[in-house]
């Protein structure tokens, strides 16, 4: 190999520079998002862990069930509280501040859901 003495250190330097953001933040996940939970309500429609990972799946299920199959518009939590199976009228009733709840995690994970292109968020939180 010609120019071994220059190429290999240059490659190592290049890799080092390219991956520097990873080394710089290694072992640190940054400021973890802390979505503000509603004060007046303690129980959600499903366990926290499920909601954390799969709330979007649940929303899609509600939508398809209600729009296409005439599914029930109301649901009941494990403790017997009735709720609207609806983003705008259900979720946002308790989680009334989109900026302090939805956006906190969505910004952290850099996802841009298009819910609010059509659905209206509660007025007082805007």
């Amino acid at each position, binding site marked *: 190999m010609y120019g071994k003495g220059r190429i290999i250190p240059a490659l190592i330097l290049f890799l080092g520079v390219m991956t520097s953001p990873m080394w710089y933040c290694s072992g640190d996940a940054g400021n973890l998002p802390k979505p503000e939970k509603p004060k007046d309500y303690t129980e959600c429609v499903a366990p926290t862990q499920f909601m954390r990972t799969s709330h979007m799946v649940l929303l899609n299920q509600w*939508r*398809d069930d*209600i729009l*296409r199959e005439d599914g029930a*518009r109301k649901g009941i939590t494990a403790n017997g509280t009735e709720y609207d199976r609806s983003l*705008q009228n259900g979720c946002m009733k308790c989680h009334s501040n989109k900026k302090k709840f939805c956006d906190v995690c969505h910004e952290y994970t850099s996802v841009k859901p298009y819910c609010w*292109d059509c*659905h*209206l968020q*509660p007025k007082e939180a805007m």
Partner: protein
Amino acid sequence: MDSKRRDFLKIAGLTAIAGIAAPSAFNTLLKGEALASAGPAASGHGAAAPTGKRYGMVIDVKKFTENPGLAEQCVSACHTIHNVPDFGNKKDEIKWLWVESYEHVFPEHSQDKRPDALKEMPILTLCNHCDKPPCVRACPTKATFKKKNGIVAMDYHRCIGCRFCMAACPYGARSFNWRDPRGKDANGRPFIKAENPKYPTRMRGVVEKCNFCTERLAIGQIPACVEVATQTKGLIFGDLNDPNSEISQVLKTSFTIQRNPAIGTHPSLFYII
């Protein structure tokens, strides 16, 4: 093997024909026709055996002539509840429910020697919620679909704005959002005057139309326009398949017409002129 050229050609020809014909024959037999035409309604004329609900409406045009302004009140109630934008120009107009002239609602009828009164009649018109909706067949994403209760509904999440449904609808009941409904005009006037926080808006690039107030029916209310016209009985809403419903009784005792029935869409809207 001692086969003749003639026999070989015969077998080869038959095999080719069978190979081409069989898959298409299987497809037709197994799958049936397209989804929208596979509904319960029988083909041809004559009534099909009704199954389940089929919501419909009778529009008594005379009642709207007797009560000037009623039609506009119905439109305004509908458009307020459903956050329908008013872009302020006819070209971009979004309409779920609108007022039209007789000759435009019934263009296939003869306009010859009609009474003058007919020309000024405000005729309310909206999605016909056809029993055989051409828009449903045209939609490539199943964003529009027919529900079990006869309502032709839309899932705006799935609409890609191709406007095939608008081309397919013979009644002009579908509107396209050329502009952002949440936006404002040059004078700063928002297109949606007062947003109803209970119902979503739409976004730019989707088609929208009347949903027969599915969301109100689900909680036991009647459609908004019918509610406004309750006192005058100008609009009668109900289940066409239930022989004892008010609408069935009205249809039994009055002469009604449908918009362009000859094209076989089986509209669920009936007009008393």
